[in-house]
């Protein structure tokens, strides 16, 4: 038996209001199931459960606000011998960050079982499955003695990625224009509908204020900027898009996301969290993509494993995120997992953006508008589409030289769009 607690969904969240239960006592649940939605200053977030079992009791009524860490449901393990999760109650006043979230909700981890037999999983396969959130019990091992190998997990993920969970409420559809702003929300957020947008706005402003004030107070930012000749990548993309039906076309921002992810593979110091006076680099690259809300405010949900996704997958992931963000249907893991933030204010005509890092992340990459500019090459002056990219780095975690290397490799990756 274990307690399911109110999760922390961001640096700035101290309490959440239970909005709706999707389960009732007696229901069987599986790791990854959405069992409730919680209203925070950032909208209504779906909450996933991280263990298999059965709901025993619901402890909190919809509409009740409880501090982060408060038990809100009791879950009974599916197998009688399953170890009880160790709930770690977090005092409401304690500062929560994304890592707390993981510590909080990682409960007992039952061995994947086929007919009650213990399944062999190689250590690296287990680690990878955990990073990707893959359910090992779904995989048939092909390694020595039928063990699940790294290749099995990758293969499963590759096949699985083609059919992601689709939210019933907001079927994803392609966004044809630069998606960051301007696109009207498909529907008002539930929170806005319920509470009236003024109050919701105020709450979101307060949340942003808390996070940004903390950032400015604690993080010694350094800033770097460089200008990129976008002629080659844009020409490549245009040619590429000519071959595609309109609904499958790829937006330029996708190239920027992928190039950023690839550059982070080369310069990993910028990808991760500053926790307990130390940099905790993250192997997984989850790019928080700043999405402005029509009614004001913004959220930065994560595009998971951006470095491993193809351009098509990134385009689909981004469209889906934008749609669900504006519909107020984000998942908790998407709100807490970002390891770096990317902001693109180019379509607002902004030439360059100097970002404020979202703690405990350690970097923010900003892209401005692509503008035709005079550009000298080999002593000749020409006109090129030029994009200014900036990096805001946490000087505790990295130095300007590393930041410079990052921008340098980012530029190089963009100049080879066919390899992105």
């Amino acid at each position, binding site marked *: 038996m274990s307690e399911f607690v109110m999760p922390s969904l961001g640096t700035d969240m101290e309490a959440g209001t239970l909005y709706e239960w999707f389960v009732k006592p007696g229901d069987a649940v599986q790791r990854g199931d959405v069992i409730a939605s919680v209203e925070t200053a950032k909208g209504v977030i779906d909450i996933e459960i991280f263990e298999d079992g059965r709901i025993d009791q619901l402890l909190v009524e919809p509409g009740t606000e409880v501090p982060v860490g408060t038990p809100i449901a009791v879950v009974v393990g599916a197998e009688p011998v399953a170890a009880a999760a160790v709930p770690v109650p977090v005092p409401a006043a304690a500062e929560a960050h994304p890592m707390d979230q993981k510590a909080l909700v990682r409960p007992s981890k039952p061995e994947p079982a086929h007919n009650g037999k213990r399944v062999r999983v*190689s*250590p*690296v*396969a287990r*680690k990878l499955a955990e990073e990707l959130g893959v359910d090992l019990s779904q995989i048939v091992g*092909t*390694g*020595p003695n039928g*063990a699940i*190998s*790294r*290749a*099995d997990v990758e*293969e499963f993920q590759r096949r699985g990625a083609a059919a992601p969970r689709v939210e019933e409420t907001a079927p994803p559809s392609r966004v044809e224009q630069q998606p960051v702003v301007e696109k009207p929300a498909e529907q008002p957020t539930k929170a806005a509908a319920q509470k009236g947008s003024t109050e919701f706005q105020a709450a979101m402003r307060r949340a942003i204020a808390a996070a940004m004030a903390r950032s400015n107070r604690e993080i010694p930012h350094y800033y770097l900027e460089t200008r990129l000749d976008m002629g080659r990548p844009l020409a490549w993309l245009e040619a590429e898009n000519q071959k595609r039906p309109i609904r499958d076309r790829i937006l330029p921002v996708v190239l920027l996301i992928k190039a950023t992810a690839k550059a982070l593979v080369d310069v990993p110091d910028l990808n991760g969290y500053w926790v307990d006076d130390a940099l905790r680099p993250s192997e997984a690259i989850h790019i928080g993509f700043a999405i402005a809300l029509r009614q004001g405010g913004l959220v930065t949900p994560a595009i998971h494993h951006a470095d491993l996704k193809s351009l098509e997958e990134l385009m689909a992931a981004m469209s889906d995120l934008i749609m669900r963000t504006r519909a107020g249907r984000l998942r908790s893991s998407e709100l807490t997992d970002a390891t770096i933030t990317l902001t693109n204010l180019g379509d607002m005509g902004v030439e360059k953006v100097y970002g404020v890092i979202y703690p405990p992340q350690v970097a923010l990459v900003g892209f401005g508008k692509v503008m035709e500019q005079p550009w000298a090459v080999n002593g000749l002056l020409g006109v090129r589409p030029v994009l200014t990219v900036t990096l805001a780095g946490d000087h505790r975690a990295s130095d300007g030289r590393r930041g410079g290397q990052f921008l340098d490799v980012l530029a190089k990756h963009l100049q080879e769009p066919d390899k992105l």
Partner: protein
Amino acid sequence: MKTNGKNGHGEMVTLTYREAVRAAIREAMQKDERVFLMGEDVGSYGGCFAVSMGLLEEFGPERIRDTPLAESGFTGAGVGAAIAGMRPIVEIMTVNFSLLAADQIMNNAATVLHMSGGQFNVPLVIRMATGGGKQLAAQHAHSLEGWYAHIPGLKVLTPATLEDARGMLWPALQDPDPVLIFEHTLLYNMKGELPVQPVEVDIDKAKIHRHGNDLTLITYGLSLHKALEAAEQLATEGLDVEVIDLRVLRPLDTTTFIDSVRKTHRALIVDEGWRSGGISAEISARIMEQAFYDLDAPVERICAAEVPIPYAKHMEEAAIPQVDSIVAGVKRMVGEYV
């Protein structure tokens, strides 16, 4: 030895491993008058494996010294000479016979620096032949270098290539502490090309001889060549195997093989020594300690069968790692997926 003209590294010569060791001894004797060679039959007979052929004529009986069949005595003399300021090279005919000198090696050479509170280094080099494959049976064919790698105070080298046979002796003589060099008997006739000008080598790093992504073969000595041949065969079947020559068994260059295992996620250790308590067990343990979460399959070992090395040719072959057993081991570990 014959000169072949140029090839990028300057002038090259074709020579055998035996000649490479001899060239290394000759060069050391020319460069440093404190260096001398002693051992059974190293003088008039030219060495049991003909390594020192011609050196007596070149350097005289003062510096190329035949000894009685008394390993403990002459190894002890080497320890004393080293403490007194000489740079002796002691040749022990095979590693099996080194057990007669084990007291001098372990209780004196390896410990005097410690026991004297740091007053006396023992800059001694002991060379010996090791390994099976020549039907020399159970008193001449064992691979006990892993035992010596157990002992703090010693450095243990296993030159597997002409370059190392030629290059490791000089840095070993420069080392202020005792260094053991194990030359596999089947390598003495190996032929290859080396630059005429000696190439400097280190005596503390393992070397990646072949890069690959599917599995790491970790080995040393003669088995390096079997591992490389196995890797060639596996490459024709689409398996991309990395091959590491440890070169130095003590201190082990852990970084090189751990980094490799982190990349390939699989490790197979090939060791002509016995499995139980051998150097292969040490390597496997370090992989568990440092790279467990990067493993995609259990670490495996191909070692000598746990018997005294047999005399009969087919049984001797069956007792020690061979190309076929390495190929089969790799395939077993990789499973269905490549």
